[in-house]
């Protein structure tokens, strides 16, 4: 869903850039306030992993592909503030080094691929966690479904933004339908990949998952490892 240069008028690109810069600043403050000493390497790993997963385009329909956006995954793993920063960093690296995602569209891409999926995905994740029993399976299921929802939501936000400042006059309804339709399919892939990654970490180091800190199972193993010489 990386937006290239030329899709949006200058005003909308600049406004999105300002929203992105402001949100990233707030995220930096919030993330550095709430994360502990292991946070920097874990967040770096999350960003690197999202970069790798974003390269893996999977087919979703005839002649169409999709790849993970990663906002929900990152938000579940390191929290919505740091998670947004992780994906924004990936977008920055992609735009500056890999010529993916326009330079003038960087703000739009941060809004669409980092901020919206991370916060929408994390909100859905939290709601589901409250409704479901507090166990590892619920963490996996909630993260997968939240990731699924986050992708068509981002696609809908694209349609709204394009209606405001797109370079071509289009029927808003037709664009919204087309974007959400194809991105529900991409979202299914997003949900499966997110659930698979969260499931693997739940099975190995559940204590490192931000969205699972309420689960205090296996405390003996974790503490035991800490005091061992």
């Amino acid at each position: 869903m990386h937006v290239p240069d030329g899709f949006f008028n200058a005003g909308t690109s600049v406004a999105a850039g300002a929203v992105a810069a402001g949100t990233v600043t707030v995220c930096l403050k919030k993330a550095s306030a709430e994360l502990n000493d292991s946070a920097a390497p874990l967040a770096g790993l999350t960003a690197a992993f999202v970069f790798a997963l974003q390269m893996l385009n999977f087919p979703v329909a005839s002649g169409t592909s999709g790849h993970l956006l990663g906002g929900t995954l990152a938000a579940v793993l390191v929290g919505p503030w740091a998670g947004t920063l992780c994906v924004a960093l990936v977008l920055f690296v992609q735009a500056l080094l890999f010529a993916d995602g326009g330079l003038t569209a960087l703000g739009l891409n941060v809004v669409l691929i980092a901020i919206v999926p991370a916060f929408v995905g994390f909100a859905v994740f939290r709601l589901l966690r409250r409704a479901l029993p507090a166990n590892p399976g619920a963490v996996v299921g909630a993260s997968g479904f939240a990731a699924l929802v986050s992708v068509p939501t981002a696609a809908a936000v694209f349609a709204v933004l394009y209606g405001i400042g797109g370079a071509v006059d289009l029927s808003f309804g037709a664009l919204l339908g087309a974007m959400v339709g194809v991105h529900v399919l991409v979202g299914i892939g997003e949900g499966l990949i997110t659930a698979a990654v969260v499931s693997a970490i739940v099975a190995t180091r559940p204590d490192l998952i931000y969205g699972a800190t309420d689960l205090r199972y296996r405390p003996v193993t974790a503490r035991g490892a800490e005091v061992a010489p």
Partner: protein
Amino acid sequence: MRAHTKLFIAAGLLVGLVLALLLSPLASSAPDGLEKVAAEERFDGTVRDHDLAGSPLADYGVRGVDNGRLSTGLAGVIGVLLTFGAGIALFAGSRALRARAHSPSGGRAAGQPS
């Protein structure tokens, strides 16, 4: 940081590198959802070439590496390592700045062994 956590990070980074090196060359090269919709709804005509389209890693390839799969895989490895390093710098840097701001004497700086 605990040894267990270091091991987890090393293992996670290794998995990411393997995905980038071996799996990314096999990824679908079909247009993504947005490109497909842009073509169907006919708003793809305004696209401009990327300003850095001539950069040595443009479009996830390493310039000078002729084997397409190897070029993509190597670009992925470079991207994963750079993103990991940049991420650590970003988060460690922001925590250090915060620690300095919150302790003017510098007495309790971040990074102090705990």
